[in-house]
């Protein structure tokens, strides 16, 4: 827009060459050089017309570029919506397919005297249980989607981030210990209190710790550390000794519906929700990984609230 207005303004003024020729014509006329003055005047006129035409072309090209940029943004938006819808369809269609099949199997069991066969009632119960479980799976997806779509504005409070992370670490530690996963802490004791939304940050920390434990499976360590790299920011790192993420998948892990977990084990929304929370809190989240060695998630958060609250 700025460029467009700039070119419009420019087009209102004659070019310097036009002014120069015009000025020269006046000087020559004053000196009595009428023929030369006439030539200079003609040159000024031609120069004015040429420059006006050229500026017109530039303005037109610039307007065209602006329109094309807008169309590109619009098509990118549509592509993103398309990709998201396709992801939703896949995640919902799979449980629906299982429910459909279980229903078919129940119908089969109820046909004739099939139900009299040994184990048939157990199979019937099993199918019903599976339908309930797949309904839960769909519910989890739709609820997480709603969470994702809802514009939850952060409620900023002063928080002791070491304490907040430790609370979540203890929660995960109990279950992790059963799989021989150790948690190593490296908290910066001088970490300042941070203006943030504690429940939202807790959600992110819990998600990352859960993912780390899942990536390890059995026997490994999760290293948690906090520090203050600059006066106005803090850094949280979570490193696991899990399976790692291949390079080609690493830049997709924050995309909605991208999951490295097997079907039904992850909705592929956890990290994209975490990403959007951290952005809302004025920070950023990054991941580095090496297959077979593990993954490190790093969160940077501002010490003061992004909106200047609290």
């Amino acid at each position, binding site marked *: 827009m700025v460029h467009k207005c700039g070119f419009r303004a420019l087009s209102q003024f004659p070019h310097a060459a036009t002014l120069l020729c015009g000025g020269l014509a006046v000087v020559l006329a004053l000196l009595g050089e009428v023929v030369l003055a006439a030539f200079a005047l003609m040159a000024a006129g031609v120069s004015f017309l040429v420059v006006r035409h050229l500026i017109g072309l530039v303005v037109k090209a610039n307007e065209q570029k602006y329109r094309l940029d807008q169309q590109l943004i619009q098509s990118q938006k549509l592509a993103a919506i398309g990709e998201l819808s396709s992801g939703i369809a896949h995640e919902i269609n799979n449980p629906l397919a299982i429910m459909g*099949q279980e229903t078919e199997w129940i119908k089969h069991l109820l046909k004739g005297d099939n139900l009299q066969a040994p184990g048939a009632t157990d199979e019937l119960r099993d199918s019903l249980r599976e339908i309930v479980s797949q309904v839960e799976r769909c519910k989890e997806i739709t609820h997480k989607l709603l969470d994702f779509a809802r514009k939850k504005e952060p409620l900023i409070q002063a928080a002791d981030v070491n304490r907040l992370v430790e609370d979540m670490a203890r929660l995960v530690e109990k279950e992790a210990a059963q799989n021989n996963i150790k948690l190593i802490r490296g908290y910066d004791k001088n970490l300042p209190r941070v203006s943030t939304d504690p429940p939202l940050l807790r959600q992110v920390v819990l998600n990352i710790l859960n993912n780390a434990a899942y990536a390890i499976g059995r026997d490994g360590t999760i290293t948690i550390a906090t520090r203050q790299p600059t006066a106005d920011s803090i850094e949280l790192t979570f490193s696991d000794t899990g399976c790692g993420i291949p390079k080609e998948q690493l830049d997709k892990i924050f995309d909605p519906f991208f999951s490295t977990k097997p079907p039904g084990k992850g909705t592929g929304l956890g990290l994209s929700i975490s990403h959007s929370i951290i952005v809302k809190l004025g920070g950023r989240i990054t991941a580095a990984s090496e297959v077979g060695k593990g993954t490190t998630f790093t969160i940077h958060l501002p010490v003061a609230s992004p909106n200047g609250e609290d």
Partner: protein
Amino acid sequence: MPLKARVLIVDDEERFRFTLKKLLTANGLETDAVGSGLEAVEALRQRPYDVILLDVKMPGMSGIEALAKLKKINPEVEVIILTGHASVDVAVEIMKLGGYEYLLKPCPMDELLAKIESAYERKTARGERLRKAEATQAGEAS
């Protein structure tokens, strides 16, 4: 259904394979099930299946990659894509690679059985035509 088709289910959803196998078997079809494209390739090397029901989005080897490999091992096998992921690009790619049909999950059982039947008929007809052509060629040669 008086079908004797040998069907292979390829899907990474364990429960989907489990119940679909039960349903197809109950409908008289000889059915096996595997959880990945790699296992499907291995299974087709071991046994001449007539129809393969193949998922698209699977970890490791995708359904598209698997389809190309399966068709290379046995060009006569008919492959029905059964996926929760609708995409025109993928459907076009599948047809190019010789996929027989593209079905979207959840697919009604009657429809699936009808597609398997029609794929099996096509495979049998093609086999018979091939045998006749070979017999004619052999007759001409002698």
